[in-house]
C-alpha cells in the first residue's frame, strides 16, 4: 500500500505514537483504534519493532575508543591543552601518538592533553616519561569500561617492548588484564595499572617502581631516572 492520502496521516500518527510525540488525548484515541483494528495493530507492531531494531543495531556497534592519533600533516587545536591544569609533569615529554600507524609520529602535547581532557578523571593523571628506559609514549586513548573512563597510555621500546599504563578513578574496580607482568598502585584519587607484554621481570620491576614514584610525586624523581637507565642497559630484549 502506497503512502498516500488518509493512509499517510495514519502512518504519520502511528510513527508519532511510537516516538512518544502524540499529545495524551490523541495517544489515547489512537491506542483505542489500534486495540480494535487488527491491521492497525499489525502496522503499529511493525513500526515499533523497526524502531527497536534500529536502536538495537546501533547499540551493537563495537566498543568505541577515541584515539587522538593524528597524521603528521594535521595539528590539533591547542585550546584543549590550555583547558588542562596540573600538567607540568608531562609538559616536557616528547609525546608520540599514533597507535594505528607503523611509525610513531611526533605530535603536540595538546594530543595527550586532549586525551586527558576527554578522560575526565577525578584528578589530573601523571603520564610518566619513561624515555630513560628506552620506552617512548606512542599513543593514548580513552576506553569506556561500564560507567568508568580509563585513560590508556601506550609505550613502545626499540626492541619490541610494549607497556600500557591504565589510569582510572580509584573508586573503580580494576578488571583482569592480559599481560606478562602487572603492577597496580593508587595515587590520590586515581588508580594506576602498568601492564607489560613480554618484558623481563627485573626490568619491569624497575620501570614500575619509577612510574609509581612519578605518579605519587607528580614528576619523575632524579634517582628513579637513574634506575630506569640502569634497568634498560642491563636487560635482554622483550619477548612479546
Amino acid at each position, binding site marked *: *500500500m*502506497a*503512502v498516500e492520502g488518509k493512509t*499517510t496521516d495514519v*502512518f*504519520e500518527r502511528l*510513527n*508519532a505514537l511510537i*516516538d512518544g*510525540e502524540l499529545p495524551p488525548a490523541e495517544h489515547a484515541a489512537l491506542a483505542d483504534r489500534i486495540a480494535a483494528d487488527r*491491521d492497525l495493530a*499489525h*502496522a503499529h*507492531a*511493525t*513500526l515499533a*519493532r*523497526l*524502531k527497536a*531494531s*534500529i*536502536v*538495537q*543495531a*546501533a*547499540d*551493537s*556497534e563495537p*566498543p*568505541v575508543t*577515541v*584515539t*587522538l592519533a*593524528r597524521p603528521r600533516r594535521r595539528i*590539533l*587545536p*591547542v*585550546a*584543549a591543552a*590550555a*583547558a*588542562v*591544569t596540573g600538567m607540568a609533569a608531562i609538559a616536557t615529554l616528547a609525546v608520540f601518538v599514533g597507535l594505528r600507524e607503523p611509525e610513531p609520529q611526533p605530535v603536540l602535547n595538546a594530543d595527550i592533553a*586532549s586525551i586527558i*581532557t*576527554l*578522560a*575526565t578523571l577525578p584528578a589530573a593523571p601523571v603520564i610518566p616519561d619513561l624515555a630513560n628506559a628506552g620506552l617512548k609514549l606512542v599513543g593514548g586513548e*580513552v576506553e*569506556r569500561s561500564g560507567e568508568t*573512563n580509563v585513560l590508556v597510555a601506550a609505550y613502545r621500546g626499540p626492541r619490541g617492548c610494549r607497556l600500557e599504563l591504565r589510569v582510572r578513578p580509584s573508586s573503580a574496580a580494576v578488571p583482569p588484564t592480559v599481560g606478562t607482568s602487572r603492577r597496580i598502585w593508587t595515587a590520590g584519587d586515581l588508580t594506576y595499572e602498568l601492564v607489560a607484554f613480554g618484558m623481563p621481570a627485573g626490568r619491569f620491576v624497575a620501570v614500575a617502581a619509577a612510574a609509581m614514584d612519578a605518579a605519587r610525586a607528580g614528576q619523575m624523581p632524579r634517582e628513579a631516572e637513574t634506575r630506569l637507565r640502569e634497568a634498560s642497559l642491563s636487560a635482554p630484549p622483550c619477548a612479546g
Partner: protein
Amino acid sequence: MSLDVHSTLPALLPRLVAFARTIISDPEIARDLVQDAVTRALGARRVPDVASAYRAWMFKIVRNAAIDEIRRKRSEKFEDEPSVDLWRFDNACIAKITIDQSLATLGPSHREIIALIDIAGFSYAEAAELLGVPIGTVMSRITRARMALLAAIEASSIRPMKSNHGS
C-alpha cells in the same frame, strides 16, 4: 573552559558513531568523522554548558561533517518514494542484519532523519531545530524514511534465520 564541560562526551561516543555510520554507511569513515568531531569539540572556544545543548551540539558537529563527506562523494542525490504494505509486512524480516543492509541503501536524508530520531534519540522538536525545518516536516520525513526502510528490507534478498522453536 571547565573540564566538566566535556564530561558527558565519552557516554555519547557510541551513539555518535552509530549516528555517523547511519548517515555515511562506511564504519571506518564514520569513526574518523567522530574522532575529528571530538577533536574539534575539545578545541572549541565556546561550548554549550547545558547537557542537552551540549549533546545537540555534538550531534550537529558530526552531522555537518557527515554532510560534507556526502557532498564530497556526490554519489547519492535522489530518493525514491517507497511503496510497502505496512498492513501486511512480515515482521520476521526485521532484524539487525536486514536493518544494517537496508539502511545503507537509503538516501542521505532518509538515513539522516532515522539517525536523528531513532539513534540519537532527538525529539521531533529538537530534530526540527537542528535541521531548520518545521516539526511537521520532521513528522512526514521520519514516516517516509521508515517506509523506505521497510521497503528496502522487503526488497532485500537477506532473510534472518528462522527459529525452529515451537515447530
